């Protein structure tokens, strides 16, 4: 019995190593500058409306860290024709769910709704894109300020090992770099944010030419296009935004930091600067993360957790943004195990991968996992990780919404020797952060320089 009709997604005959992924789309630009991407997928009778604004915490002014994210919250509080509270009420009444998120580079929003409710999402998104300020009051800003402060408490301050992540940006980047403060911001800066800041930020960054709208799901392409043209036709164009253009960040020394936290087990975090998103070397570093920390056979897991059993868990991954990347290794040690011992073994494994290449099988294992993840990802249209968001993400970072296949090819074309070369280039011991997070009163467990 066939449940779903085959549509939109053209996957060539599959050998697990040679699929071509294609997510067909239609793209156009409105006269006011808004980029629009449409993709049809009739798997279920729902659609996802996804909007990216090309502004994140990297565009914040000094003294206003956390503002881009606070602004994201304010975007749900109503606009000229949407009274406070109604944004979410109207969506839920139509059977929709929605959310938003902020990074250093961008802010995104989505509404996942039944297929009949496209007009509602477009009304709401166009109203806040064009006419947010008409309904803005001081109390709106105050209310969300408190919510965001509690988000900071919940996600960082009251979470084991969470506070360390707030310190990291300033250690990794020079003061004038847009990634040198955390997206969530400081409590003092959140307190300082004013209604005028909201108005300035909106006027400067929340304009159609600095955004991309993607609709994926059970749509009729021609009707969806008409609806977009109608709802966004009266959104004013605004003044062109210049994107940030920071000088490349460089770490020139090793910085060692020891932090105490309310934790039982000590944790070692080592962080390096690495290639930016989709730049040469970033795929190599992502694969290196998996070789070191993904699965039982990965180098660090096998050595520290499986064989020696001196660690509780290991993670290693590349986090890429527009202007820079970061490579993380984190190891949570067993009780009483000194982090110097952990660091020494991590260093041995780094030295090993830089001097001799991984085996073909080791790399194939990792790449095949990536390939399956691509396929699993395109099963879903909505949410933060569905196709609507991915099409916008690819558009923002590469200019090509359907970059799925090219993206996969980045991983498939890497040789074991490329990974060793990238490790040599980026994982240098004289340019990194070595962070020891230890239980209160246990500073003696911290990793110390030999």
């Amino acid at each position, binding site marked *: 019995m066939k449940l779903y009709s085959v549509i939109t997604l053209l996957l060539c005959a599959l050998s697990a190593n040679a699929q071509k992924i294609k997510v067909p789309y239609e793209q156009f630009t409105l006269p006011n500058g808004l980029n629009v991407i449409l993709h049809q*997928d009739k798997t279920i009778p729902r659609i996802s409306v996804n909007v990216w604004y090309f502004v994140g915490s990297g565009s914040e002014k000094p003294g206003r860290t956390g503002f881009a994210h606070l602004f994201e919250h304010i975007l749900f509080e109503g606009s000229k024709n949407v009274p406070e*509270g109604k944004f*979410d009420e109207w969506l839920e009444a*139509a059977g929709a769910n929605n959310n938003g998120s902020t990074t250093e580079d961008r802010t995104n929003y989505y509404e996942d709704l039944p297929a009949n409710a496209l007009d*509602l999402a477009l009304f709401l998104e166009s109203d806040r894109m064009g006419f947010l300020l008409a309904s803005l009051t001081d109390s709106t800003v105050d209310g969300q300020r408190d919510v965001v402060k509690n988000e900071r408490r919940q996600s960082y301050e009251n979470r084991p090992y969470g506070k360390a992540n707030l310190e990291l940006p300033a250690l990794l980047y020079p003061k004038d770099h847009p990634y040198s403060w955390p997206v969530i911001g400081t409590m003092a800066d959140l307190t300082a944010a004013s209604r005028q800041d909201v108005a300035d930020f909106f006027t400067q960054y929340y304009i159609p030419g600095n955004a991309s709208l993607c609709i994926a799901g059970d749509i009729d392409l021609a009707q969806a296009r008409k609806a977009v043209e109608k709802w966004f*036709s009266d959104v004013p164009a605004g003044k062109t935004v210049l994107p940030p253009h920071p000088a490349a960040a460089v770490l020139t020394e090793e910085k060692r930091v020891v932090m105490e936290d309310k*934790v039982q087990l000590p944790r070692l975090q080592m962080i390096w600067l690495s290639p930016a998103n989709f730049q040469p070397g970033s795929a190599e570093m992502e694969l290196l993360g998996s070789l070191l920390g993904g699965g039982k*056979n990965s180098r660090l897991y096998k050595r520290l957790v499986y064989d020696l059993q001196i660690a509780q868990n290991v993670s290693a991954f590349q986090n890429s943004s527009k202007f820079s990347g970061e490579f993380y290794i984190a190891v949570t040690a067993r009780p009483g195990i000194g982090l110097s011992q952990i660091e020494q073994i991590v260093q041995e494994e780094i030295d090993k991968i830089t001097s001799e290449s991984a085996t073909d099988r080791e790399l194939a294992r*990792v790449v095949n996992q990536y390939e399956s993840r691509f396929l*699993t990802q395109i099963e879903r249209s909505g949410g933060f990780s569905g196709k609507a968001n991915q099409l916008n993400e690819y558009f923002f970072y590469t200019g090509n919404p359907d970059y799925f296949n090219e993206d996969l090819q980045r991983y498939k074309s890497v040789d074991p020797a490329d990974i060793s070369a990238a490790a040599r280039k980026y994982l240098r011991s004289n340019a990194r952060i070595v962070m020891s997070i230890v239980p209160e009163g246990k500073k003696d467990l911290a990793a110390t320089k030999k």
Partner: protein
Amino acid sequence: MKKICLLVSFTLWLVGGFAQMPDRSGPPALSQVKNLSLPVPVRFTLSNGLKVVLMEKHNVPMVQVNLLIQTGNYDDPVGKEGLASFAMDVLDEGAGNFTALQLADEIELLGAQIGTGSRPFSAEVNCTAPVARLQDALALMSTIILKPTFANSELDRLKKLRLNALLQNYDDPSTIAQRAFNQLMFTEASPYGRFANDRTIRSYVREDLVAFHTTNFVTGNSTLIVAGDVTKQSIQPLLEKYFAAYPKGNATNKARPVPAQVKGRSIYVIDKPGAAQSVISIGRLGPARNDPSYYAVNVMNTILGGSFTSRLNSNLREKHGYAYGASSSFSFWNTPSPFVASSSVQTDVTGPALGEFIIEFDKIRTPIPTDELSRGKNYNALGYARLFETNIDLAGTLGSQILYQLPDGYFNNYVGKILAVTEQEVMAAANQFVVSDNMLIVIVGDRAKIEAGILKLNLGNVNFLSIEDVLGKKPAL
């Protein structure tokens, strides 16, 4: 349900004439909702009697195959709490001729994932594989299922991992709150109130795992669930090949006692000095999954704490700014089971935040405004299609159908049943299940800073516990 609608057809045109002007005077009228129409899943049995249920989905060349075992955490023998979870964990640490590392290597090389784990009343082996590698993946899956090694070296290794994970629980206020809530609600006398601890973890021996496997991995206790890019014709011979040797046998009887309802109101404060927030869990017993009030309870909870615009979230987050969010949920086991409302609230407003929970509990028992009721129904009903989007969604949904013994056709009828719920039924559900006079209240936070605010509310007897009172003595490692 359906909002009857005219597709907007105004005749204002922009200069240039390419687009209509939008009417922003209110939310646009919407066209009729498209119905979700799902076929009955295909069912067959293998030659050994192992049941198979299949839903096809052909837009991505991936397949999900889950073995669902109807035995879970709450079926553990007394004194061996955590055994189901542990046995499932060790299951894939070596099988047939493969060591743990060889198995992981083979699976990853296929681009497949095979996961093992347990839940309150079930255990699962889940395989996600590219359809081109399905045969190889099923061969490995069946080796794990039929021939686990349960090597002592792996048991010892994973016991140490578990004991250390247990130690990490002492850091996490949400875990502490959840554990305290269940222990206090059910007590040690009930399987629902007992949890793995230092002693039970150290007590597991190989024979326990072998017994768990032999008893529960039998045809009468198991179902294979398949979702994805296969047909009955393509999958049946493969399943026959790899699972015909799955042992025949009947499910054993499981003691799943009906728990006692919370009487009176008791408050427990668990001290976590220096905590930036207090984690609050409040609740009592809600209905069983097969209770006729199921649909009304779902709608009621959507309004109370099951959505962003719900009253608890609107109150604690939007109105007062006490929290990043607040929510409530019903567990819906096959017996009466917990209803819990929870939030992480700013330390210095713990008392007032707690007071707001009680206010909302009492308010939900009074008449509900029409727009709020219809919003709760629509949100619940029209979002239902999300359970059927991916292979993993489908397989999970089919699994719940088995665990709750839901008839075929159930999924197609769900939307209509929710939309038919009346205000009287919602209020009846609230009055029956959200009784704030009889609730258990657990708060994990900085006692020195929150005690006065909680006492001031005069909600009832306040008891003070340490984290060790909840989790036991820290394991010596």
